[in-house]
C-alpha cells in the first residue's frame, strides 16, 4: 500500500467516528471533554456553532453518531453522546454574549426563506451576520417547524425550543408567521436575490383505499396532523381504545401522546417484525414502558364500523420471509384474520413531500416522483435562484440533517450572491496539535474507563402520563455526566506517526492493548489487512501505513479499535508516535469571507 496521506483533511476526520457520522460534523469529543471540565458554556458553543440547536438535539436527535461510536466496537454500548449534549445545554451560563451580535451592516442582498424549520433557521443564522436581509415565512404561529408541531412537549419542552429559535430570530430576521406561501412565482417576482425552500415533508400518508376509511372518518386521523393539532391545542383528548398504525418514530409519538390525552388501551400495530420497525430502539422501550402494546406482523385489512362509528380494525397475520438477497417479503401465515377493538385510529405510516404551491413553469424541474431536482452538493434547484434543504430536498430525514443542509445551502447562496462558482466550496477548518505536556504527560485524560453506559433518569410515569408537557427524561446529574464523559475514547486525539524517528524497537506494537499496530512487509491492501497481528476485517476503517522503514518493513496501524490511550506514544523512546488533537470544523457561510476561525476552546 502507498503511505497514508494524512494531509487529506478527511483521513483523521474519519477516525473521529462520531463526528464523521454526524451530518453536521459536530466536534463531539471536544465538547465531551469540556463537559468533563464543567465548561458547559464552551461545550454549548461548540455545539451551537455546528448544530445550532444543542438543547433540542440533546433531547431529540436521531443520533447517527452513537451507532458509529468506537465504544460500540471495543465494548458494546456507545457513549451517551446525545444526552451529554443536553448536559451542556442544561448547565450553560450566558451563551448569548458568545454569539454574533447584531445589528450587522447590510450587504444589500435579500433572501426569502420559506418554512421556518431547522433548515431555514440554520440558513438564517449563517447568513444574517454577513448582512443579508432575511425574510422568513411560515404558516405556523412561531418558528421551529416540525420541532414545534410534531415533536411532543414531553420529549422537547417548549421553552427549550423557544430559546434556541429566538437566538436566531434575534439576529434580526424578518419573520412572517401565520403566512402560508401560496405561490413561488409570486415570491420570485419580488426582489429577492435568492429563495430557500425549507418547507419540510408536510403530508402524512393515508390508507384511502382501505374499506371503511370514509365511513369511519370521524375517528380516524393522520398522525402528523393529529400531533400538530395537539401541539397547537386544537385537540385536547382522545378516546380510551386507540390503535396507532405504523412502526416509526411518528407512531411512537402518537401512541405516547394518546396515553397522555386519555387513551387507556393503546396499541401500536405494525406490518413488520418488531426488530425491523423503523422507530429507534429507545423510542420503542419508552412506549412499552408506558404500557403500550406493540403488535407486529399484522397488516391492516379494514376499518370496522357500526353506523359510521368506528368499532375496530381487521388485520391479516403475516410473517417475514427473506430471499437470498435478504429482501423481505411479508407472507400471510394462513391464520384467521384478527379483529382489534378501537374507538380511535391514528395513521402514522410515513410522510411525503408536497409542493402544491410551486408552479411547474418556473424552470424548476421535478422528477418522476414529483420531487424537485436538487443538486446534492450545492442544494440548488434547476432554477438557479431557488435552493432547497431539509426534508423538502430529498425527503423526510431528521433535524440534524436539516441543519447540515442549511449550512451547505447557506454557503451556496452566499457564493451565488457573490457571483462565484457554487462548486468552489470552502475547505474545512482543521488544526492538529500535539497533546504532549511532559515526558509521559498528555493534556487529555488518556486513561480508558471501563464503565458501562449510564442511564438517563426519568420522571415517574404516574406524573408524566398526567401532563403531556411534563418532560419524561430528567437529564444526567453532573456527577453521572462526568462518569459518562470518561467513557469517551478521545478519538480526535490522533496517533501521529513519524517514520524517520522510528528505531523499530517494537515497543508500540507490544504495548498496544488492542493489537492495532503491526510492523510487517508491505503488500496490497487486501493482503496487508490479513497480515496484521489481528487481521483488519472491518473494511470501513482505514489503515494508517507508513513509508518504508530501515529494515524494509512498514508500520501499519488498523484504526478500527484504537483506544487512543496514548500508550504507543508513551512507550516510544524516540517520540516517533505522538498524540495530536485534530480539530475539524465544517466552514459555515459566515466564516468564509472573514478569517474568523470556528469557535474553539
Amino acid at each position, binding site marked *: 500500500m502507498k503511505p497514508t496521506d494524512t494531509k487529506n483533511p478527511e483521513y483523521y476526520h474519519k477516525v473521529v467516528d462520531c463526528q464523521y457520522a454526524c451530518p453536521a460534523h459536530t466536534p463531539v469529543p471536544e465538547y465531551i471533554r469540556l463537559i468533563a471540565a464543567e465548561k458547559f458554556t464552551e461545550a454549548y458553543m461548540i455545539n451551537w456553532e455546528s448544530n445550532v440547536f444543542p438543547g433540542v438535539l440533546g433531547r431529540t436527535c436521531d443520533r447517527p453518531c452513537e451507532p458509529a461510536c468506537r465504544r460500540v466496537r471495543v465494548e458494546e454500548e456507545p457513549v451517551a453522546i446525545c444526552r451529554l449534549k443536553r448536559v451542556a445545554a442544561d448547565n450553560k451560563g450566558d451563551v448569548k454574549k458568545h454569539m454574533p451580535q447584531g445589528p450587522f451592516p447590510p450587504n444589500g442582498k435579500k433572501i426569502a426563506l420559506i418554512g421556518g424549520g431547522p433548515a431555514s433557521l440554520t440558513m438564517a443564522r449563517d447568513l444574517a451576520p454577513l448582512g443579508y436581509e432575511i425574510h422568513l415565512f411560515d404558516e405556523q404561529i412561531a418558528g421551529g417547524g416540525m420541532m414545534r408541531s410534531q415533536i411532543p412537549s414531553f420529549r422537547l419542552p417548549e421553552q427549550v425550543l423557544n430559546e434556541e429559535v429566538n437566538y436566531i430570530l434575534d439576529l434580526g430576521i424578518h419573520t412572517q408567521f401565520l403566512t402560508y406561501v401560496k405561490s413561488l412565482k409570486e415570491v420570485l417576482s419580488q426582489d429577492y436575490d435568492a429563495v430557500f425552500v425549507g418547507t419540510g415533508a408536510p403530508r402524512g400518508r393515508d390508507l384511502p383505499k382501505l374499506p371503511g376509511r370514509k365511513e369511519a372518518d370521524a375517528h380516524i386521523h393522520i398522525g402528523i396532523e393529529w400531533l400538530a393539532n395537539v401541539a397547537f391545542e386544537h385537540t385536547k383528548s382522545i378516546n380510551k381504545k386507540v390503535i396507532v398504525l405504523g412502526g416509526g418514530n411518528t407512531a411512537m409519538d402518537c401512541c405516547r401522546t394518546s396515553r397522555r390525552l386519555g387513551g387507556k388501551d393503546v396499541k401500536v400495530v405494525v406490518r413488520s417484525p418488531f426488530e425491523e420497525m423503523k422507530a429507534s430502539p429507545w423510542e420503542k422501550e419508552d412506549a412499552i414502558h408506558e404500557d403500550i402494546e406493540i403488535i407486529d406482523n399484522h397488516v391492516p385489512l379494514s376499518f370496522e364500523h357500526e353506523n359510521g362509528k368506528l368499532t375496530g380494525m381487521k388485520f391479516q397475520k403475516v410473517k417475514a420471509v427473506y430471499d437470498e438477497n435478504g429482501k423481505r417479503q411479508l407472507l400471510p401465515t394462513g391464520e384467521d384474520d384478527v379483529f382489534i377493538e378501537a374507538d380511535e385510529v391514528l395513521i402514522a405510516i410515513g410522510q411525503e413531500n408536497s409542493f402544491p404551491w410551486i408552479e411547474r413553469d418556473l424552470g424548476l424541474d421535478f422528477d418522476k416522483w414529483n420531487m424537485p431536482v436538487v443538486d446534492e452538493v450545492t442544494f440548488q434547484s434547476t432554477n438557479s435562484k431557488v435552493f432547497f434543504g431539509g426534508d423538502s430536498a430529498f425527503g423526510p430525514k431528521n433535524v440534524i440533517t436539516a441543519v447540515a443542509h442549511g449550512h451547505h445551502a447557506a454557503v451556496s447562496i452566499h457564493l451565488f450572491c457573490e457571483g462565484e462558482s457554487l462548486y468552489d466550496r470552502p475547505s474545512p477548518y482543521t488544526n492538529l496539535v500535539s497533546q504532549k505536556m511532559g515526558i*509521559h504527560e498528555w493534556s487529555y485524560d488518556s486513561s480508558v474507563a471501563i464503565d458501562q453506559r449510564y442511564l438517563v433518569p426519568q420522571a415517574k410515569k404516574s406524573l408524566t402520563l398526567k401532563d403531556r408537557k411534563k418532560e419524561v427524561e430528567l437529564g444526567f446529574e453532573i456527577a453521572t455526566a462526568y462518569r459518562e464523559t470518561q467513557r469517551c475514547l478521545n478519538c480526535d486525539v490522533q496517533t501521529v506517526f513519524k517514520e524517520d524517528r522510528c*528505531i523499530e*524497537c517494537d515497543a508500540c506494537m*507490544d504495548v498496544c492493548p488492542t493489537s492495532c499496530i503491526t510492523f510487517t512487509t508491505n503488500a496490497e491492501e487486501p493482503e496487508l489487512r490479513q497480515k496484521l497481528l489481528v487481521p483488519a476485517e472491518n473494511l470501513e476503517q482505514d489503515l494508517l501505513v507508513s513509508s518504508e522503514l530501515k529494515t524494509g518493513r512498514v508500520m501499519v496501524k488498523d484504526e478500527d479499535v484504537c483506544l487512543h*490511550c496514548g500508550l504507543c506514544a508513551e512507550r516510544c*523512546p524516540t517520540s516517533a508516535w505522538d498524540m495530536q488533537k485534530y480539530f475539524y470544523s465544517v466552514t459555515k457561510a459566515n466564516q468564509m469571507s472573514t478569517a474568523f476561525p470556528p469557535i474553539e476552546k
Partner: protein
Amino acid sequence: MSYLKPQFKHPKLPKNKIGYTIKEYEGPLSTLCAGCGHDSISAAIVQACFEMSVEPHKVAKISGIGCSSKTPTYFLGNSHGFNSVHGRMPSVATGASMSNKDMVYFGVSGDGDSASIGMGQFVHVIRRNLNMVYIVMNNGCYGLTKGQDSATADQGSKSKAGSVNPFQAIDLASLAIELGAPFVAQSFSGDKQQLVPIIKAAMHHKGFAFINVISPCVTFNNNAGSTKSYDYVRQHIEATSTLDFVPEMPIITTKYDQGKSTKVALHDGSIIQLNKLATDWDPEDRVSVVNALQQARLKNEILTGLLYVNTEWNDLHGTLKTCKTPLNKLTEKDLCPGEEILEGINRNFR
C-alpha cells in the same frame, strides 16, 4: 504517565488450544524505559507461551536483580513468580524445581546478574543441568544502576559518557557450551521472528536451556559506538534467519541460507559480522559449534540462532533419580508409610 493498561482487547483476538487469548499471558504495564529491549523479550515470552498453549499456572518466573530481572512483573501475570537476590536466581530456581518438577521454569537474568555477581551460580546450575529456560537479557551494562559497563560489554565499546571499555567481554554462550549446557541459543530482542521459536524450543527442551538475547538499553547503552545499540544490531535483522519450531515433533530444524554473513563497520573502523549458521554446521555436534564460535570470535562475528542442542543428557531430577511424583505432592502417607515399613527398611541395614 499511564500506570494501568486499558482492559479492552481486540474483539477478534485469536484463542489458543486451551481457549486463552494472548491477553491472559500478559502482565501489568511495564515501568521499564520506553523502548527497552527487555520489554520486547517479555513480549516474545508472552507470545511463545500463548502459542504453546501452556497453562499460566504451570509456569514459574524466577529472577535476580536488574531491569532485566524486573521484567517478570510485566509478563505472565497469571503465573508464579519470585524476584530473588542479585545473582541468586539459579539457587532459588533449583529449590523450586526440586520441590515441583511439573512446572515450566523461566529464569530471567541480566548480564550483570549472571556474568558478574551471579557467575558462580550460573556455572553451577549449568553443571547440574537444571530443567529450565535461562534467559539473559544482555545489554552490556548495569541498566538499573545507571549503565556501568558489565562483564559482557565488548572491548572497545563506547559508553554513553564516552569511555571506552578496556576489558575483554565474557561470551556467555561460549561459556555455557564449554560448561556443558545442552541447549544454547543466541538472539536479538528486536527479532521476535527468531526469538519466539527459540523460546518455544527451549521450553520443550528437557534440561538446561540457555538463551543469550542481545537487548539494547535505550537509556544508557544505545549511543553511537556501543556494540549493543539498536542502530548497530538493526542492520543485521535482515541477515539473521528465523528458526522454525514445530512443537508436535521433537526435531528442531534450523533454516539458514548457507554461509551468508553481513559486515558492519564500527565507529572505530573495526568490523563486526553477523553470521547465519551454515549447513555444514551441526547443532548437535558440540565440537563443531565450539569451533564455529571460536572462529566467529576471531572474526568479530556474532552468531545468532540455535547454536547447540543435545537431548541426551540427564537433567538434575534424572541424575538424582527423584521419584515420579513431584516432591511437593507427596502426602504425609507417602512420606511416613508407617512403623511396619520403617521396620522393614531398618531390617535391611542390620
